């Protein structure tokens, strides 16, 4: 890590904050009008703004920091995880975005209440997994924001966590969904530019594309190996094709079913705009992820060749019997107290380029991606607690009389709680993201997608799938992480690699179908309203 305060980098971050907080303050009047304005930006957002907002909400530090870090750790096979994400985005338009926008609910749980005829229970069946996933995502986003503050301000990690909490609090509390939508749109442009700039800078530093990839292969000969390579895979985790498919599938289905993207479908002007917004989201995602693949694959080589801490890191790496790049990260961890320092690998690669302007762009882009995600999830969680639970299910007086005030109080509590957890993050940001995805997709995904497309999908199946899959995904991930040492090992047999316990996605789907077939079908009018009218 470069020593001392970098004024150029600070200017980039300052410009970013002026724009972000300015939008938050401007949005305050709009947000204060009422529920639809606060939660859904008045349902009047066009395709480009909604699409770019979708991109930045969906992409989190798990994308910007986590995916390059995992490519750095696991090599080329991890590229397929990024491809899987984009391949999931492009199908979301007709699959869930357009039907859900036509149906027009306010929050994520409305669908479960209406489609499955459980006005109170649906709030909790869909809400509890959402709350758990939301906390995981807010934590990983605060961790990501804090890591960028470490790079920017050279403060220790724990102080950076609380700066992150305060900044997110200001514009989310003030602006509601207006602020997060417009901020997220601006943030997508900043983060995509930052990702592309990082890729170009790394490639240029190594002397162009051909020498970039040749240097990488000299530095790490196995990095482009596939699981069945005779020379062995780039890492033990990528030793089977099931692992490649597992990483591909974990995030593949998420875009169509995750609460924070679903809510973005509701903010679009109409279903046509919702579908068009997916095209913009896919295009920006392709640009960003292509860049992150290039950055991730070269991270180790460029750190080891150019990072200023390499001379100090060599003895540490020798002592640890690890690559020099890990020694550099170990030094950074020691100096700033970052809990999961591999998440810093992407920034370390950019530090190795030695350009303050590049670091300024990266920090602004990183803050964009982290803060837009935390804001999107905070909005989803406070809509869940303040509106769905306190107002609709429990009918508390204060929530009915002052919904926006209650939402702001909930936002503050959630952010402080997640700030506390972020002090000692339980895993790498990408691991937390994968955990949240599998939890939501396995427990609520089948009832979301099949509820729109399959007339036989039943209330009983929704309840059983959520009640079985939420604890199963939580337990198996925790067991694999704590007992077997990695959340990617199959919790019943550590010799089998099953990234993020992804198989639960298919188990959940099968359980949902079986229970639906053996239980009472929904009413005719429900089928007509949700499985026929939404498609006309």
């Amino acid at each position: 890590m470069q020593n001392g305060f970098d004024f150029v980098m600070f200017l980039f971050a300052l410009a970013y904050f002026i724009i972000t907080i300015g939008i938050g303050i401007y949005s305050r009047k709009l947000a204060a009008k009422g529920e639809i304005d606060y939660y859904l930006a008045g349902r009047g957002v066009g395709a480009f703004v909604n699409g770019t907002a979708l991109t930045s909400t969906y992409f989190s530090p798990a994308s910007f920091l986590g995916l390059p870090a995992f490519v750095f750790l696991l090599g080329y096979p991890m590229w397929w995880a990024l491809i899987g994400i984009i391949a999931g985005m492009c199908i979301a338009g007709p699959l869930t975005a357009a039907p859900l926008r036509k149906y027009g609910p306010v929050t994520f749980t409305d669908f479960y209440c209406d489609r499955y005829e459980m006005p109170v229970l649906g709030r909790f069946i869909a809400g509890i997994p959402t709350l758990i996933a939301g906390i995981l995502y807010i934590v990983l986003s605060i961790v990501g924001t804090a890591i960028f503050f470490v790079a920017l301000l050279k403060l220790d990690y724990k102080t950076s966590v609380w700066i992150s909490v305060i900044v997110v609090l200001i514009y989310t509390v003030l602006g509601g969904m207006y602020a997060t939508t417009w901020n997220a749109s601006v943030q997508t442009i900043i983060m995509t530019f930052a990702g592309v700039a990082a890729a170009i800078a790394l490639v240029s530093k190594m002397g162009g594309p051909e020498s970039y990839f040749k240097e990488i292969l000299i530095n790490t000969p196995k990095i482009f190996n596939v699981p069945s390579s005779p020379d062995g895979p780039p890492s033990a985790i990528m030793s089977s094709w099931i692992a490649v498919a597992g990483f591909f599938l974990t995030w593949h289905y998420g875009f169509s079913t995750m609460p924070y993207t679903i809510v973005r479908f509701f903010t679009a002007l109409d279903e046509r705009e919702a579908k068009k917004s997916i095209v913009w989201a896919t295009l920006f995602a392709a640009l960003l992820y292509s860049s992150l693949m290039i950055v991730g694959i070269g991270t180790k080589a460029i750190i080891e060749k150019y990072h200023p801490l390499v001379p100090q890191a060599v003895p540490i790496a020798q002592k640890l019997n690890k690559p020099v790049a890990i020694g550099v990260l170990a030094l950074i961890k020691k100096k700033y107290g970052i809990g999961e320092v591999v998440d810093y690998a992407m920034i370390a690669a950019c530090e190795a380029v030695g350009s303050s302007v590049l670091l300024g762009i990266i920090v602004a882009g990183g803050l964009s991606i982290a803060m837009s995600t935390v804001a999107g999830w905070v909005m989803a969680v406070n809509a869940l607690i303040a509106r769905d639970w306190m107002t609709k299910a429990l009918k508390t007086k204060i929530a009915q009389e002052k919904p926006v005030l209650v939402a702001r109080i909930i936002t503050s509590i959630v952010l402080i709680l997640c700030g506390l957890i972020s002090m000692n993050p339980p895993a790498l940001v990408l691991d937390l993201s994968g955990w949240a995805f599998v939890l939501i997709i396995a427990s609520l995904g089948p009832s979301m997608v099949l509820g729109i497309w399959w007339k036989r999908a039943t209330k009983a199946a929704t309840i059983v799938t959520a009640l079985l899959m939420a604890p199963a995904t939580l337990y198996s991930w925790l067991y694999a992480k704590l007992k077997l040492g990695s959340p990617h090992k199959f919790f019943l047999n550590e010799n089998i690699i099953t990234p993020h316990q992804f198989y639960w996605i298919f188990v959940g789907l099968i359980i949902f179908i079986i229970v639906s077939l053996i239980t009472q079908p929904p009413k005719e009018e429900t089928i007509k309203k949700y499985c026929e009218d939404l498609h006309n």
Partner: protein
Amino acid sequence: MFSKMPKLLIVAFLLIYLNAVLWWTLEASNPDLPKTFVMGVPAAFWYGNVWSCFILNVFIAWILSKV
């Protein structure tokens, strides 16, 4: 029993999985494929990055927005 699903959506699903399985099969039968240099960069860049990420998925998103 099922709602009328747009044919293009089904085709898109098939294309996505066939694309992944095609390249994984080719890689499994020729492990050097990802690092074989084509026009100055590894082949994986062309079929993973340019084709799979950009061309195929953005095209699918665009065509599905018309459904």
